[in-house]
């Protein structure tokens, strides 16, 4: 009984550490949690107590990240804090890595991300990558200046749930139209999400993209609600 209480409390603590971005006891942030154990210590402790990795993932890590998503949607936190939580999530995932390798744990699915051809900006795409990985998705990052052919090639070789395209310029966002069209020809049911500073929903509709999101969380929410197995 006590042991189960301990476990529940530890799982809640772990979810809280994810939510607050507390990596380990030596982290100097968040300021109000200095000196307290973080995701690294608590995840290890739970594993030592033989708590199944799937329970740790579902009942603590993803629960914490869902809370982060809620706070972001409610305007209580902004992108930097989402990234801080995602960093803590990645620290926990590193500890769970052997279980993913063995096949005991599975990520939610694969997503391709690419900055479209002609565009060399990678910050937006990388932020999306960090948030999606923090949300339990495997990201195939095709990099910058990416053509339809390269994405189609990756799609042939992987079971992918969705593709996310990024562009930062009004000139390069026009290349999205051709890429979305090329992808839809071969994979008509594959959702394609688009994002980037000059884009808006109207443009996304015009080029027949399935989703426009002004932030990484919107894409994560879309994936979770449409494809997540957990």
């Amino acid at each position: 009984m006590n042991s189960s209480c301990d476990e529940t409390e530890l799982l809640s603590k772990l979810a809280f550490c994810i939510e607050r971005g507390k990596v380990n006891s030596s982290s100097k942030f968040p300021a109000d949690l200095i000196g307290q154990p973080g995701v690294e210590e608590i995840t290890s402790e739970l594993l030592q107590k033989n708590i199944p990795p799937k329970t740790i993932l579902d009942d603590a890590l993803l629960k914490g990240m869902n809370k982060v998503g809620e706070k972001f949607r409610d305007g209580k936190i902004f992108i930097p804090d989402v990234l801080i939580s995602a960093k803590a999530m990645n620290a926990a995932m590193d500890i769970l890595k052997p279980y993913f390798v063995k096949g005991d744990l599975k990520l939610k699915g694969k997503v391709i991300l690419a900055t479209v051809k002609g565009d060399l900006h990678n910050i937006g795409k990388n932020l999306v990558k960090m948030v999606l990985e923090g949300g339990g998705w495997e990201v195939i990052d095709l990099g910058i200046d990416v053509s339809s052919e390269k994405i189609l090639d990756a799609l042939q070789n992987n079971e992918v749930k969705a593709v996310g395209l990024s562009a930062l310029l009004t000139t390069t966002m026009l290349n999205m139209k051709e890429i979305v069209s090329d992808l839809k020809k071969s994979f008509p049911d594959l959702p394609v999400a688009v994002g980037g500073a000059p884009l808006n929903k109207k443009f996304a509709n015009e080029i027949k993209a399935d989703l426009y999101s002004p932030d990484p969380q919107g894409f994560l929410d879309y994936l979770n609600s449409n494809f997540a197995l957990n």
Partner: protein
Amino acid sequence: MIKDIHQYHFSFDELNFNEEKLLHLFSDFSSANKSLLIDSFKNHLPFLKSNCKPVAGFRFFDDKSISFKKNILLIENINFELGPIIYRDLKEVSEIFVFVCTIGKVVEEKIHQLFSNGDSLNAFILDRIASELVECTANLLEQKIQSDFLKTGYNLTNRYSPGYCGWSVSEQQKLFSLLPDKFCGVQLTESSLMIPIKSISGIYGSGYKIIRRDYQCEICDDEFCYKRKLKKD
């Protein structure tokens, strides 16, 4: 007599980017995580001091070289389709400064390296700082123009860049055609992307007793423009 083309090399210290500006720049960081931000900045600081290489320059065009048609600026017979927002602010000016500034490529290489090594949070922080340092470089250039080149009674307009305030980013090609090749070390790709990426180009207008107006964000439909964000802050 103003010579046509000027170029300046500044030091990182001249940009005067400090902790106070850092905290303002990252006002979306929750207060509990400010120590992370400050630590990250302190870690990046020695690198920035040695590798941030601000360069800025401009070419000056007097009233003989410029003219206006509705929503259009002509410089040496090249048409710039400014759109109504910028045109409204510039139509009374008698001089144009076409400018470029950059902080060089080393900082963006470092950002790329941090991302590649999985340190996305520090990469994100450095990226945002780098973007602000280019803005600081443009501000220094503006001060230089104001102090050294403006005639008595003349004022500068806001600075305007292709890609903002309704001016198409593709017009960047025409803008760069007015400047020497690789001016300030900046060049354009076919898609009008500046390399190094942490660069700004654009124009200032100047005129006698011109009143500098605020950016007209309320009549622009660019919801996510950084100028709008700055104005809100």
